[in-house]
């Protein structure tokens, strides 16, 4: 049912649109950084670093929108949870953006050091990270609690792949594989992807809070 105050509805949906937009930006940044690495395109990596500013600005915008709604409409019940969670979610998205920048910076170093066969080892992890982030974003825009729970489940796969990958790369390094620095950078990228999975889980937990009023963090 709509609110009696039309402005209230308009502002709530504008807030939601802003979060969805920020989600799209963060996911795109991650994709672009990975694409830069896999297609040997340093320019894409630079783009990600430059464009992070936009994600940060979007975070500020969401804060302002949320604050203004709290101030003017005193939201309660699910409206209040929606505003609080939107602000939380934009924190997670901002950090996903930061990880995309980390990936871009590592990728740039790897590319500068010359072609590295092991780069394609992260493909399965990239696939899972993409799935979990876009799952979290869809769960938010569709307010889909079931999907949010699935996202939380997906993180197991992300963790598992990351662990296996960093172990095998560490072994290669111990075995004398070269160049060490590039291999280390692949491990760092893998870790960023794993952290992105954790952030997607945070987003999913916020969505469960919106729909069920249950705080499932740290449970």
């Amino acid at each position: 049912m709509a609110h009696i105050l039309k402005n209230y509805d308009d502002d709530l949906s504008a807030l939601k649109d802003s979060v969805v937009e920020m989600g799209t930006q963060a996911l795109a940044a991650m994709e672009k950084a990975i694409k830069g690495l896999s297609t040997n395109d340093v320019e894409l990596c630079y783009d990600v670093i430059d464009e992070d500013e936009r994600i940060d600005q979007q975070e500020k915008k969401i804060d302002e929108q949320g604050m203004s709604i709290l101030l003017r409409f005193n939201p309660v019940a699910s409206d209040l949870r929606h505003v609080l969670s939107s602000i939380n979610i934009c924190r997670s998205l901002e950090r996903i953006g930061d990880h995309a920048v980390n990936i871009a910076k590592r990728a740039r170093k790897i590319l500068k050091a010359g072609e590295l066969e092991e780069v394609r080892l992260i493909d399965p992890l990239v696939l899972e990270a993409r799935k979990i982030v876009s799952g979290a974003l869809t769960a938010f825009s569709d307010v889909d609690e079931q999907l949010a729970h699935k996202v939380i489940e997906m993180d197991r796969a992300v963790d598992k792949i990351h662990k296996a990958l960093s172990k095998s790369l560490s072994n290669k390094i111990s075995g004398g594989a070269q160049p060490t620095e590039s291999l280390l950078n692949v491990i760092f990228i893998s870790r960023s992807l794993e952290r992105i999975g954790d952030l997607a889980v945070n987003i999913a937990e916020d969505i469960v809070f919106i729909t069920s009023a249950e705080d499932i963090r740290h449970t």
Partner: protein
Amino acid sequence: MTETSVTTDPAAAPSVASNEPIIAIDDLSFSYDLGKTNTLRNISLEIPAGKVTAFIGPSGCGKSTLLRCLNRMNDLVDTAKVTTGRISILGQDINAPDVEAIELRKHVGMVFQKYNPFPKSIYENVAYGLRVQGIKNKGILDQAVEESLQKAALWGEVKDRLDSSALGLSGGQQQRLCIARTIAVKPRIVLMDEPCSALDPIATARIEELIAELQEDFTIVIVTHNMQQATRVSDRTAFFYLGELIEYDETQIIFGNPSIKQTEDYVSGRFG
């Protein structure tokens, strides 16, 4: 009214354990037209002692009517009638034939939306209820007046002008005076019908603070249209719609995560 039930001496009123309801409303229906139509329908709720309970709901849903049932103010309407159920206060059926409304109101005081001090001195306003009870001793009256004004957080502002007219006070002060007048007779329950709706934000904040303090000595039932006020002052909230009780729960739940969609729609401004 029998000696064993609600007695004239408030101190001798039966006490209720703090987890027992001081007011128990059971399947209450109420009519203003001798039962042709029920303004309140099958309402059951238990109000705990020593807590603040808020009644909320859209205009005309029957909040004031229910509040007035609790001290039988509706007796003033000739055609008013309880059509089903009962209300027990301190274990006594308040509509039992032997219960006098005047007696009941000693235990169940009321503060109205439009503050209504008598056109008398500040002192006489507060002493009024005690004088009606036949108390003439100046020492006792002086003490009760000071104590009540202290409790109503008004003493400091009026102690040097107790003999001047109550009508010379500001609106917020007049409302606190009415609260002092109500609590002077030491009721167990104080009913408040939109006590702040005619006050500015500062006077409102004062009354809200006062409610929190009074809670130690009295059970308070407050009708309010101000949702933020209900969240701030009350422990439990009852939401009414069209004469029915829709949901009654802890205030945190009613405004945080109500169980019934109608409640959520109303508290979040989605009504109509």
